């Protein structure tokens, strides 16, 4: 039960390193093995799925945003699915990992918006109805917080439920719950990526377009 909550494994130069870091490396190794050994058709199907989803959600051609959003999807899927393996714990059950991913999305929304529209246009679009500016700022922070808590809450409650049932009835009963954990992990990865794409698309939209919005 105690391994459900993240604990420090070793220290480097006095900086404590948690087991989530090590599990993240395992997830990275898993992704590299998957890319090396999977059929090319499977990889193309994955690419097409990501491309279509992200294009339709961002509202324009996904070429610029596909690296970031595709990486988010693949990494979060791998990280969540690792939690089902018996002696490993998903790195996303540590609050810091979903927080880091949500902060990446937060920074990238503003980065892509400023890159597409320029400083002044982006900020003036952000403050379009000027009396809504405080609400806009609060909603930016709330979106980041909700991305974090959604991913963290789903993963840690899946792990905790499997751990509790395992402590009570270890024989066959945890299996369907662990399977449900795989489904939840993949779904939450898709939801995280889809919401990130929607936020980036919303940041790119011009309030008074001279050119139509899907150029």
């Amino acid at each position, binding site marked *: 039960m105690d391994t459900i909550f993240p604990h420090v494994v070793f220290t480097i130069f006095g900086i404590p390193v948690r087991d989530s870091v090590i599990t993240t490396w395992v997830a990275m190794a898993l992704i590299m093995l998957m890319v090396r050994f999977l059929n090319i058709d499977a990889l193309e199907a994955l690419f097409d799925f990501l491309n279509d989803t992200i294009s*339709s959600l961002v509202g324009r051609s996904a070429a610029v945003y596909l690296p970031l959003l595709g990486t988010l999807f693949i990494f979060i899927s791998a990280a969540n699915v690792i939690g089902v393996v018996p002696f490993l714990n998903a790195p996303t059950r540590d609050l810091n990992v979903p927080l880091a991913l949500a902060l990446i999305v937060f920074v990238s929304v503003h980065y892509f918006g400023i890159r597409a529209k320029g400083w002044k246009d982006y900020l003036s679009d952000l403050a379009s109805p000027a009396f809504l500016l405080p609400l806009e700022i609060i909603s930016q922070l709330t979106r980041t917080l909700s991305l974090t808590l959604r991913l963290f*809450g789903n993963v840690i*409650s899946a792990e905790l439920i499997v751990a509790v049932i395992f402590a009570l009835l270890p024989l066959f009963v945890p299996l369907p719950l662990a399977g449900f954990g795989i489904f939840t992990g993949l779904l939450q990865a898709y939801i995280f990526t889809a919401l990130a794409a929607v936020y980036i698309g919303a940041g790119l939209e011009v309030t008074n377009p001279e050119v139509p919005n899907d150029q």
Partner: protein
Amino acid sequence: MSEEGIIVLATIIVAGLGITLGTAIPALAEGRAVVKALESIARQPDQAGNLRTTLLIAMALLESTAIYVLLVVLILLFANPLIDRLF
């Protein structure tokens, strides 16, 4: 009743009440969303893909408040900072 006894009692009552309300209300809301989505799919079957994607994202957003409640209840039961150990 001792200090710790009162806190444990309050924790149990709040956990039970919280999880009941916290799963019932989002479930009702999701049911209403699904009803509307199914009616729209029945009216325009060629838009089914689009509607399905929107439905899925909307359900995940509705589900997230239920997850927040579950998170708080789990913290209360398993990592309660006010008592030594409940489980």
